[in-house]
């Protein structure tokens, strides 16, 4: 049975990659996602000796910021808004790739294509309650996001 990276490792990887790829700086948060009205959620399969799923959920406003920073756009532009879902998927893809390396001690590991949805914070927060590993994070602007690893495909 493959071991998921520790929560500390999850936080370290997420914080490093969000900063490197999208200039978004985060720290761990004790607050849940219950009060976040709407979140963009990306799910990415990580297939190795076992099936895992990465879940990356961000406050809708952060989706726009990710798009703007990844693409070098002004956050207020229409294009940043239009690209926000795809940007969340791309960031989830980058996170899944880095986390998959942590699983490769138990053999080859591949990642899937992100599936995207739009969900209330309370709903995704409840779904993540059973995650094997989970990190609630907050940006320097106070927007919330979460990164989690679930065993199997369900969330």
């Amino acid at each position, binding site marked *: 049975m493959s071991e998921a990276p520790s929560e500390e490792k999850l936080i370290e990887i997420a914080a490093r*990659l969000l900063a*490197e*790829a999208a200039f978004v700086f985060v720290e761990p948060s004790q607050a849940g996602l219950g009060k976040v009205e709407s979140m963009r959620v990306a799910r990415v399969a990580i297939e190795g000796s076992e099936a895992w799923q990465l879940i990356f959920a961000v406050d809708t406003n952060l989706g726009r910021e990710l*798009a703007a920073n*990844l*693409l*070098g756009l002004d956050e207020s532009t229409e294009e940043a808004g239009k*690209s926000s879902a*795809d*940007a969340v*998927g*791309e960031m989830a*893809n*980058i996170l*899944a*790739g*880095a986390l*998959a*390396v942590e699983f*490769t001690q138990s053999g*080859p*590991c*591949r*990642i*899937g*294509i992100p599936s995207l949805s739009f969900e209330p914070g309370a709903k995704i927060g409840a779904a993540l309650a059973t995650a094997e590993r989970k990190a609630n994070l907050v940006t320097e602007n106070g927007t919330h996001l979460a990164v989690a690893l679930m065993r199997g495909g369900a969330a």
Partner: protein
Amino acid sequence: MSYRILVVDDSPVSRRMVRRAVEMSGLDVGEIIEASNGKEALAAIANSWVDVVLADINMPVMNGAEMVAEMAKTDFMSVTPVVIISSEQGKERMEAMKAMGVSAYLPKPFRPEQIKEVVGGLLRERKGAVP
């Protein structure tokens, strides 16, 4: 001589990120064309000259590995360098792709300087090889 670069990725955001990095790299780029999967990329290479292909692995319709395998079957396509730009960083995956004929592998996230180093090197090699 300006180069013609093909960017292959199903994600429009990812294609734009690669395009932006290429533009910022300082390479002498004449045109950057795009395809959203391997099948579209093969059609683009068949229709016009491409100096280098920058491709993702995980794509619907035809993925990056299938695209490279198809390119290897055609003489003029087999000499077109392919750089895989992917989130997948597993050593085994990278080695398997290189064994298939991929020229280089760049993990995401990447910087324009890495594009310049890797793609610039391949373009110089290719320029030297073309009579």
